[in-house]
């Protein structure tokens, strides 16, 4: 009985807390990727709530009906080995639930990994996001600009982030736009994002990476296409050129505010993909190669996989 009361009290506490606050970031999506995950999360919460409620109900019934204080002194509980029928049920029900969720899982995982439906006819905007202790560097090869600790995206256009790290494994995360993906030193990983509503979204490195980890954040700002293009032009007319020397300074451990440059570090320090990758295998290599040809201005660098 106490247990039931405690549980009700807790459930009420939960709802008041949930109701009293702004929507939780992950459940307040601003793009199709995050929306898919939010829907999957709600679906799984509901499915799982059923299981929890069934188990708690059964438990309360057992405790209530079969507690010793309710039975006669000389009641001897029977010996029960098990029952094939009952045991089939307790296997079958979980199996069905798991099957259902497996389908949801596989389907939604394919979904969030690809360019969202309705946007797949557009050429994605490629942005390289690389982390260094404890900053994020965003390089726009197409626009030929680079920013630190903030990133501007056009809305309603697929954006392909290519992630890698100068240092520990980090995890690129903008909760309202999409789930995480690791950034590592010896290969490039990818994440597809579409922002549908203009606005500022918090982003961070979610994977522990040492002393400055807590402040390893950035802002992602979604702008309309026109605003985005204006912003790019503005940068070209105001910001300085990023030099190799300066970039190496930026890599030093610490925190920097937001910064803007023209040019990208990819020209003198290419991303670890294709022939610059730490491992030459599979997919990354082929795609990297073609990519490499796109901007093959870098000829006289040493092997940069040795960061």
């Amino acid at each position: 009985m106490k247990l039931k009361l405690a549980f009700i009290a807790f459930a009420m506490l939960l709802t008041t807390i949930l109701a009293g606050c702004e929507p939780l970031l992950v459940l307040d999506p601003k793009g199709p990727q995050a929306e898919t995950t939010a829907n999957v999360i709600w679906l799984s919460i509901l499915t799982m709530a059923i299981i929890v409620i069934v188990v708690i109900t059964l438990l309360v019934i057992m405790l209530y009906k079969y507690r010793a204080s309710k039975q006669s002194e000389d009641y001897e509980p029977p010996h029960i080995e098990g029952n094939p029928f009952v045991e089939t049920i307790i296997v079958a029900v979980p199996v069905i639930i798991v099957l259902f969720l497996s389908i949801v899982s596989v389907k939604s995982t394919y979904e969030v990994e690809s360019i969202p439906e309705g946007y797949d006819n557009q050429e994605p905007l490629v942005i390289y996001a690389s982390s260094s202790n404890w900053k994020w560097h965003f390089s726009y090869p197409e626009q030929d600009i680079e920013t630190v600790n903030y990133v501007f995206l056009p809305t309603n256009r697929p954006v392909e982030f290519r992630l890698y790290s100068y240092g520990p494994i980090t995890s690129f995360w903008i909760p309202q736009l999409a789930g995480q993906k690791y950034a590592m030193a010896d290969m490039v990983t990818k994440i597809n994002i579409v922002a549908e509503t203009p606005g500022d979204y918090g982003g961070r490195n979610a994977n522990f990476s040492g002393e400055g980890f807590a402040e390893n954040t950035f802002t992602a700002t979604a702008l309309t296409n026109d605003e985005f293009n204006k912003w790019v032009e503005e940068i070209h007319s105001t910001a300085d050129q990023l030099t190799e020397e300066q970039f190496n300074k930026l890599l030093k451990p610490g925190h920097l505010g937001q910064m803007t440059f023209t040019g990208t570090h990819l020209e003198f320090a290419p991303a670890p993909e294709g022939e610059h990758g730490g491992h030459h295998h599979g997919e990354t290599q082929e795609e990297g190669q073609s990519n490499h040809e796109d901007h093959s201005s870098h000829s006289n660098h040493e092997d940069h996989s040795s960061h």
Partner: protein
Amino acid sequence: MEFFERFAIPHPSPLIYASMVAIGLTMIAIVVGITYFKKWGYLWREWLTTVDHKRIGMMYIISALLMLFRGGADAVMMRLQTAVPDNTFLDAQHYNEVFTTHGVVMIIFMAMAFIIGMMNFVVPLQIGARDVAFPRLNAISFWLYFAGAMLFNISFVIGGSPDAGWTNYFPLAGTEFSETVGVNYYMWALQISGIGTLMTGINFIVTILKMRAPGMTLMKMPMFTWSALITNVIIVFAFPVLTIALLMGTLDRQFGTHFFASTNGGMDMLWANLFWVWGHPEVYILILPAFGIYSEVISTFSQRNLYGYKSMVGSMVLISFMSFLVWVHHFFTMGHGPLVNGIFSITTMAIAVPTGIKIFNWLLTMWKGKIRFTVPMLYSVGFIPLFTIGGVTGVMLAIASADYQYHNTMFLVAHFHNVIIPGVVFAMLAGLTYWWPKMFGFMLNERIGKWGFWFLTVGFCLAFFPMYITGLDGQARRMYTYSEETGFGPLNMLSFFGAGLMAIAFILIVYNVYYSFRYAPRNVGQDPWNARSLEWATPNPVPHYNFSVTPVVNSSEAFWDSKKNGHQLFKDKIDKIHMPNNSGLPIIIAGLFFVFGFSFVFGIWVGVIAAAIGIFGCMAYRTFEKDHGHYIPVEEIQETEMKLEVRNNENR
């Protein structure tokens, strides 16, 4: 001077200096105390050199409780630091050290020691054996664990603690980003105690397979013994992976290899893979013995046989296989495509099925039972709903797409505490209370015990449920602080409050030991709970040979049968009993391992070589040592039994 400088801690703080003083004073107090009461001889003869599984079990459990307090202090510090936004109680570096040691201490030195301690004490009694198969190896296992634990615990006063998380991901844990000796300590402390654990695994498999009482077929073993058998099989398969991973990590850090580096053909992802190939089975190593304890407790206090014995066994066997097929779920976000993630997502969810079967079997064990709400039963009853919540959040995490949002957040932290605390910690407290009278001959006070349970349960809910919410709100784990705008403040304060209640619960539990030691009646008889399995057929306290006559068994509840169905447990007459001799070698060899590990941490090669020679010397000595154990003569057994009988009869 330079030689000594490296022993200095890199980030000193008043807190650390205070603990140094405290540690120093405690050590002096212990040494003075033992000397004053002239207990060195007793300690050496009866405990430090013992090969008795019961005493080794108790030493494991005492060490586990000590580690629980060490890890608990870490936990309270973390919750205090994050209770309010922008707090400055700990700085980032200290916070990182604290959560790293918290994780390692709790998993490796608390939970592992607790379950191995329980297995040590209970398994031989449950199968009607007089000791484990290799008693001296068992002592070595314990002392290696102890050496590892001590090595790990001195890190924060000598040289600095590890700070790369209990998962210790490279390259963060490499020398480039973790320059102090902290991670070296991690490598060697885990290595040394891990070797001990591996030996335990082998020892218990042999014990359970070869030393069961006549009549006890595999399918007539009590459920805790079954869980111990499966657990040890997992240990034997999983721990070698850890051993090798740690060795490779050591080579990387101390000899300049590049296994886990991101350059020269190394692969940082390799560490993550190896770690979790061990790490996921490890979480099942922790939970299976807990399942075993709940099976015993629920069946005893429902006064009914365990429902679905066969499916209980079957599900554990299934879990043991499957636990090796799911490790990738710890890094769905590493970028290996939807196909791989999809497969591991399915295997992970599949493992929830056998887990669910067990929950329903426990519920059905209560069905038509006669449920008594003792402290062990309260923990078991609390376990069922709370663990179910932890399990279903595990299934939520197993959905790969959703995990991209949960991963590395407080949601994950909430999940694994939700399975480990109501799963493992509750089980250990239930088991400890349940078998306490067998260990010490008196019962723990029920009233204080129940207060402890309620504080712990309510504290747990308040401490960890809010984390599900902050996780979904974007709070990453392992952040030493957060800003006010994030809005994480109030829920983290609630969490801190819950942690406070849990701390009170543990204080109550310790107080209960003290209180019961002073006031509890000593005449509890050999079977105070009206239990069912063989360990309760021994007198209280258990003589060191356990059973004067080997019992004969015909079901998984032999003792219950002897009470209710007229089954005769002890048929033979008392005969002389062969027992193993005590030995000082285990503690000496573990001491040498400690020196070896410590020297290795600091690269003091003289110490390493000297200790290595010592270790091999001990092994050589053992090889040529003639030690065939001893016999206890019949008269002595009869005398002991008589005394125990008088004692136990007085009590009825």
